[in-house]
């Protein structure tokens, strides 16, 4: 019994230590308040990469940082410029050392909703998409391992990664942070959106005529470009060429029936994303309308919807006017997307 006080002390000390709060996690799990326009669904967010403010902030920092290119000369934003709806204004954007690939940089607007990424659909999820530009020889040409090494040796990034993911930069946290930022690039506040949300004054008569033509049976643009994001997410051959240097979807499937098929792009902000087509070969919307009006080149895989439309000049002007009404000026000026 003479040791009883000592054992009592130990018991109390143990109980008190059990009441201590756990060591605070360095991770900030504050959710990101993603605003979704009227008529848009909430995008699917993968369970392993919940959308948090810290992840979005980290993703934005990485998006604008040339550290992810081999010679630290270009960033994601070099080819995806906010003023151009996160697209570029050249047929093929130069990568490190001026190297050129063979495809036009797509808009990142509403990329959160795409079922497959890249023009050929070769990437199954947004979380893995950053691997392509970072590692591609003609783009940023940096192995993920080296990118991660640089980030972990950087004076600022380790804390950002700890806050966002509770751990250092890894191939997973790097790609998922970029995906988190890209998921926030939602565009749905064009004059067309305001019009369909009962502000009839937001579109003029020419644009309304173009809209009717766009969704009508003569032009049939809406057969492929429909829904809130103006795409059916399919892969189609639009008759751009009789012979394709870039096989498109066939590159992934190896199926000859997929030669010349590319993902149907969103038309949101289309007036800002010239030049057009998978290779940026059509410089203006006028050229695009002319292409579809002509019925395109003969190709065994050409979509049955591509045939001569016999549009009048006035109809062509109205279609182009309607496409202009899909520009979301708040998207391209949103400070939340700007470099800090």
């Amino acid at each position, binding site marked *: 019994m003479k040791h009883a006080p000592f054992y009592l002390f130990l018991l109390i000390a143990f109980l008190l230590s059990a009441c201590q709060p756990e060591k605070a996690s360095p991770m900030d799990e504050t959710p990101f308040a993603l605003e979704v326009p009227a008529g848009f669904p909430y995008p699917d967010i993968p369970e392993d990469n919940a959308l948090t403010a810290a992840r979005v902030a980290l993703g934005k920092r990485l998006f604008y940082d040339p550290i992810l290119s081999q010679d630290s000369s270009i960033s994601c934003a070099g080819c995806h410029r906010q003023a151009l709806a996160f697209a570029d204004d050249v047929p093929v954007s130069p990568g490190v050392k001026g190297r050129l690939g063979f495809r036009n940089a797509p808009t990142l607007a509403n990329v959160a909703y795409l079922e497959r990424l890249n023009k050929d659909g070769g990437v199954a999820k947004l979380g893995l998409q950053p691997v392509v530009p970072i*590692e591609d020889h003609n783009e940023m040409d940096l192995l993920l391992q080296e990118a991660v090494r640089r980030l972990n040796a950087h004076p600022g990034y380790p804390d950002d990664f700890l806050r966002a993911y509770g751990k250092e930069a890894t191939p997973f946290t790097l790609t998922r942070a970029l995906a988190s930022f890209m998921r926030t690039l939602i565009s749905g506040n064009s004059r067309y959106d305001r019009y369909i949300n009962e502000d009839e004054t937001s579109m003029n008569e020419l644009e309304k005529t173009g809209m009717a033509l766009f969704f009508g049976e003569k032009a049939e643009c809406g057969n492929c470009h429909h829904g809130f994001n103006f795409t059916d997410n399919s892969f189609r051959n639009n008759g751009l060429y009789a012979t394709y240097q870039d096989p498109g979807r066939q590159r992934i499937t190896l199926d000859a029936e997929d030669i010349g098929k590319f993902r149907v792009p969103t038309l949101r902000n289309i007036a800002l994303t010239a030049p057009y087509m998978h290779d940026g070969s059509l410089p203006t919307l006028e050229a695009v309308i002319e292409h579809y009006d002509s019925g395109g080149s003969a190709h065994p895989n050409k979509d049955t919807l591509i045939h001569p439309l016999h549009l009048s000049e006035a109809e062509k002007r109205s279609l182009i006017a309607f496409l202009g009404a899909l520009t979301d000026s708040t998207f391209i000026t949103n400070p939340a997307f700007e470099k800090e």
Partner: protein
Amino acid sequence: MAAFGAGSVSFHYESVFYLKLNFKPNNMRSSKFLLLALFILTTVAFSACNKDDQPTPEEKVMAGFEFDYVVDGEAYDTSKVYTINGTAVKFTIANFYVGGITFLSEEGVPTKIEDKYLLVTPGSGMQEVGELATGHYHMAQFFIGVDPVANSQTEEDFTSRDASDPLSLQFPTMHWSWNNGYKFIRVDGKVDTDADGVPDAVMSFHLGNDDMLKNLEFIIHKDADPGQGDMHFEFDLAKALEGINLSQDYFTHVDDFPELATKFRDNLATAFTYKHQ
């Protein structure tokens, strides 16, 4: 009371004496302890007896695969220039995935090693495949590549897998940078394109895409006995390149030259052989 020894042994024997000799009301606390000790001892003893009545578990043996690299019978050596189909060739990388590993008994009963992938390199040596019941196995099957589900990377992918997983990020890379999916096999090096005997042009045979999966099977007649689970295969790079004019056709990443990739894939059927011990 210490007559039966010292230290830890003496405690046991002392306890027994207490039980036998000192079981008195004024020593109740010690007695309770001794009763408990006896109970545990008895339980352990009985359980030890029961053990003999249990059926003997099936004996298992750890199977292992090792791939010995050769070039037309010569040992693989990255510093050596080989002549294959009349063209001087030097190798730098020759890595591939092995999956879908299945062993078949004489009666054709399969034992599949689930979810097991090996990343085989010239230096990977003997790699554990999985446990097999001891006995005789007539055949081994596996494929070179990655199954379509894992290859799609829609769920787990090479960035999310644990670093110990062969399907995680590797160096040299075993994933494509322009699409999701793995390189099933990659053979890199240089070939001589101007007939001066000096390999000068980059050779690259990178096969991926579900169509490029190559199923292989081997008669092994293997007695998998304890300590005898290792199996050896030979990979002859010259046979993988057989029938290919390497001075002209030396680069395929499948999509850019699918015919060459298909030829290489088909050659894998003869490039791998089982080495009976």
